[in-house]
């Protein structure tokens, strides 16, 4: 009986530790969903409440729900500022071959551009440029850094 109680206590402690550590790791990687960055650390703003960038999964150029939400905000902002033109920079992480990454960055930038266009922004106002893996925003060699670097960034040109 006594033994059982002890065991129970021990198990409880182990359980609690597991939950706590699970929480702490969840917090650490809380800025990544799947392998898409969801945090704000590197994000800049075109205007108040209008993030300048969206993030992608490894080797992917499909837009996540969060990315579409960000791009809708950009579209609204661009509709209000009709004289404003932008360039969308497409980027890849460092874990791919250079040439493929150039193509991938281009595809990501165009995915963002296409989405803005479906919200009524003229293609003439949106240039794209791919930098492949050449311009990491976070130079670390970690999954978090790579997720921050897989991005398209909308930059004002005038």
């Amino acid at each position, binding site marked *: 009986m006594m033994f059982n109680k002890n065991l129970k206590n021990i198990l409880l402690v182990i359980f609690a530790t597991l939950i706590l550590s699970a929480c702490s790791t969840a917090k650490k990687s809380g800025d990544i969903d799947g392998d898409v960055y969801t945090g704000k650390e590197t994000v800049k703003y075109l205007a108040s409440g209008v993030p300048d960038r969206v993030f992608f999964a490894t*080797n992917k*150029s499909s837009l996540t729900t969060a990315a579409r939400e960000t791009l809708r905000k950009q579209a609204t902002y661009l509709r209000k500022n009709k004289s404003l033109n932008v360039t969308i920079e497409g980027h890849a992480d*460092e*874990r*791919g*071959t*250079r*040439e*493929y990454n*150039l*193509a*991938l960055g*281009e*595809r990501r*930038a*165009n*995915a963002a551009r*296409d989405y803005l266009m479906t919200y009524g922004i003229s293609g003439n106002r949106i240039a794209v*440029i*791919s*930098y492949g893996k*050449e*311009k*990491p*925003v*976070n*130079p*670390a*060699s*970690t999954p978090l850094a790579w997720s921050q670097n897989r991005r398209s960034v909308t930059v004002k040109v005038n």
Partner: protein
Amino acid sequence: MRKIILFFILNIFLINKSNALIEIDITRGNLDPLPIAISPLHVDVNSQNYEGVKIKELGDNISKIIENNFRATGLFNPLKKEAFVQKPDIAHLKPRFEDWRLIKAQALVTGKLLVKDGKLKVEFRLWDLAAAKEMTALAFTTTPSNWRRVAHIISDKIYERLTGEEGYFDTRIIYVSEDGPKNQRVKKLAIMDQDGANTKYLTLGNELVLTPRFNPTNQMVTYMSYFRNMPRVYLLDIETGTQEVVGNFPGMTFAPRFSPDGKKIVMSFAKDGNSDIYTMDLDSRVVERITDHSSIDTSPSFSPDGKFIAFNSDRSGLQQIYVMRSDGSGVKRITFGNGIYGTPVWSPRGDLIAFTKMRKGRFYIGVMRTDGSGERLLTENYYQEAPSWSPNGRVLVFYRETKAGSKGEGFSAKLWSIDITGYNERRLKTETDASDPSWSSLLSK
């Protein structure tokens, strides 16, 4: 009696002949490199001064370059000069073979040089010590400032004689020189001799430049530049420094390479998020579209006969290697292994394709037959890619990047080479960090 002697001599000759050829099999990793003695070249006492060249040390310096070349192959073991038993000039006339055999040398290189009237005259001999005979000899004249190339040409001749394969020492490597923190790299085109000497910078670093590649005659280079923030394929004449954009594309062009006859450039053009492969004829300026697929098609590389193009596509979902006829017909996927594949490069011999493979967070350089069979992974690392072939198809040069710390510290990019046997991996000396190497063909061909 006379007949007997004659017979004897003949017999020795025949025996010699059967023992004569020291041969090195370079198709396997050589774990027992051939001991070779490379005697300093004898400098003729009548040599005159020549500006910029240290005449007295020239014989030593040439032999040191040959020695370094041979050591770097992994196939030879150049012996220490302190153990040498004969003076260079005497050895060059006729070595005392038995003495050289005592220091365990199997081959001996001797030579002499004379600098006179602004000319450098060099001759060398390669001796088979076991057979006690000369294997090859050559004399040539050039300008004294060319002395490093002389050493490389001699190296090529000896390598050719001993391995039966063309050498690769009188060659250059063009690459991207890198400097500065990881997220603000300054990149310049740089060119150097294969052994790291004579580095020259071809651009100033004002704009991002990537993936330079030689044409077959090594006069021209095609590369990608972000000049005026417009990423395009360029053509550069190394001698004159003239540069021009290749083609009149309304978007990014990248991943350029020459066709084996040097008349065309094959590259990717990205439009509306889709990259396809195009060629441009350099004379007629005619542009041809080679692939038309909604996937990414890039990293094209011609077969040496010009009939096929290997390329990289993600049409199956992830990056794989495909081969097609050079008009774009008959596309066939050739990689089916575990992992994803990029940067196919056709061997100058035509028999193999080198590639980068990515699997479970590791990067490999490998080779496979041109139908994708016989895959061999030569080297594994944290990050490496972009193999380029030595002109004899025996060695690959590529670049390798290190893992960086949280602020990007500890990051480096360096050039490495490895034999296609998987042996003899070594780092190439470069003045700065380096990436995207491209190996020239033999300069003196």
